């Protein structure tokens, strides 16, 4: 192997090893340690100067205590379950709102499509934080939504939406909607219109043709969109901490607080390791879906 090829591979390779893989190993190691009143606040620490004996001593002190703690304390498994529930329900609503938008875009006149596409991409480039912020003013007690609903006479007293789980659902659906729309739109534009005409010629009603042709053929886009919403929503931190209430349990928020407020690094590490294990399943499924789609196109 010549030097140039070696350095071309080595530079990004070692960068990722040092700043992506090694940090994970450190998290894993700390999740097996115990909390201590020291700097850094965990024990044991590896003493390389003591050689092999030092390493053996270090390894013998590691245990799965923190994981046992996570299993016994209600807070953690409740947060994992509630994160899963919030992510699943928001993904469902994203699909419910995103699919009609993507469908409308794909069936809009050809000359409109670049503009519609731009309108979906624009929120995607806009700061995530600002988009979450824009919801605070709408959902608060004296916010726009309550003012509007009281003005129309639907309700007499303002609803409490901000700082509840409902606000978290609205927040996730609002910010992640473009991730659902774009892959579905991409598969719908590739859909061969003559298939629908054929179905109608053969006696299908339009609704029937939609369910038997459009939906199955856009399945890859729907699956991709669902994972693109579900995976980041599961570990979400910003939305539950800005829109949710004190009783909103989401694992990203729990991890953040465990680390910064309680300064319990070993438990925070264990929370992270479990979250990663939960995420491996959807990530593998997502990648398999992408691969299948690429093979289908090739």
């Amino acid at each position: 192997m010549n030097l140039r090829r070696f350095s071309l591979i080595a530079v990004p390779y070692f960068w990722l090893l040092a700043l992506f893989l090694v940090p994970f190993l450190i998290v894993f190691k700390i999740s097996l340690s115990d909390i201590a009143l020291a700097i850094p606040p965990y024990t044991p620490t590896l003493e390389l100067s003591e050689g092999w004996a030092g390493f053996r001593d270090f390894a013998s002190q590691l245990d799965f205590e923190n994981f046992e703690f996570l299993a016994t304390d209600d807070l953690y498994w409740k947060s994992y379950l509630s994160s899963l529930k919030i992510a699943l329900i928001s993904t469902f609503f994203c699909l419910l709102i995103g699919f009609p938008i993507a469908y409308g875009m794909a069936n809009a006149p050809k000359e409109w499509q670049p503009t519609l596409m731009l309108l979906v991409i624009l929120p995607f480039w806009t700061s995530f934080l600002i988009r979450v912020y824009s919801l605070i003013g709408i959902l608060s007690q004296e916010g726009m939504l309550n003012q509007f609903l009281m003005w129309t006479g639907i309700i007499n007293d303002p609803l409490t939406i901000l700082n509840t789980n409902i606000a978290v659902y609205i927040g996730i659906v609002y910010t992640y909607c473009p991730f659902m729309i774009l892959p579905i739109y991409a598969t719908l534009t590739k859909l061969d219109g003559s298939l629908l005409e054929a179905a109608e010629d053969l006696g299908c009603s339009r609704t029937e043709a939609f369910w038997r042709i459009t939906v199955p053929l856009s399945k890859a886009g729907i699956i991709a969109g669902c994972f693109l919403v579900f995976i980041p929503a599961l570990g979400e931190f910003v939305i539950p901490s800005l829109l949710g209430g004190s009783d909103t349990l989401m694992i990203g928020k729990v991890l953040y607080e465990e680390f910064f407020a309680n300064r319990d690094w070993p438990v925070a590490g264990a929370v992270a390791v479990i979250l990663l294990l939960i995420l491996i399943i959807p990530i593998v499924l997502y990648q398999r879906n992408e691969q299948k789609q690429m093979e289908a196109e090739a």
Partner: protein
Amino acid sequence: MRRLTWFNATSLTLGFAFLYIPMIIVIIYSFNESKLVTVWGGFSTKWYGELFQNEAFLDAAWVTFKVALASSLIATVLGTMGAYVLVRGGRFYGRTLFSGMIYAPLVMPEVITGLSLLLLFISIGLDRGMFTIVLAHATFSMCYVSVVVSSRLVSFDRSVEEAALDLGCTPFEAFRLVTLPIIAPAVISGWLLALTLSLDDLVIASFVAGPSATTLPIKVFSSIRLGVSPEINALSTILIMIVTIGTIAASLTTKRAVMRRQREERMAEQTG
């Protein structure tokens, strides 16, 4: 097939209303005279004035800008190298691990990335500050750049590269003179993506930033926690405007480039 039915028109209108009304309200209320964020007190631009007087925001914006520029440039170089290795690298030891490390950060929850990098910086005794934010941002955005660039590398005809090599180019010359101009649009959009990711990032930065460096999202986040304020409305409006102008400009440029290429192809067909 391509006609606007009643159903499609409704879903598009409602859908885009949902996506845009919250942001439009923020923009309107940034021009509100009143300090109260829910009552309209007349038109005024005074909150923009106050924003530009606010040293803390200006400092944070400057830090964010420097971090984004540095990290996006590093990410673009590393990401392009990574894409080249993925697509053209052939077989080498640990290839599967390499592609895994390129794709994994894209789906990694930010809290985990932030936590793990912070623990790394602490265990090697690196002082937290602007430098650590740059390292963190460069690492996760290089993966996005790699994905964008590699999709372009996959789709272009490899024989032009081989022709350059046959005609006596060194591999580096072939890359600089042939490959790079072809993948340039993807490299530029990868760089823009890296820039935006870095400008937007809150979670990873709040883990790896020390007390010496506060980025704009960190500053905004801590003031949002106290509630809605007209100054943040003004700041949001400015950021939304920058993104809007940038996105429209970028889409017009690509549209023009596509049209020029089509025209050139037509002319080449006619003369050839």
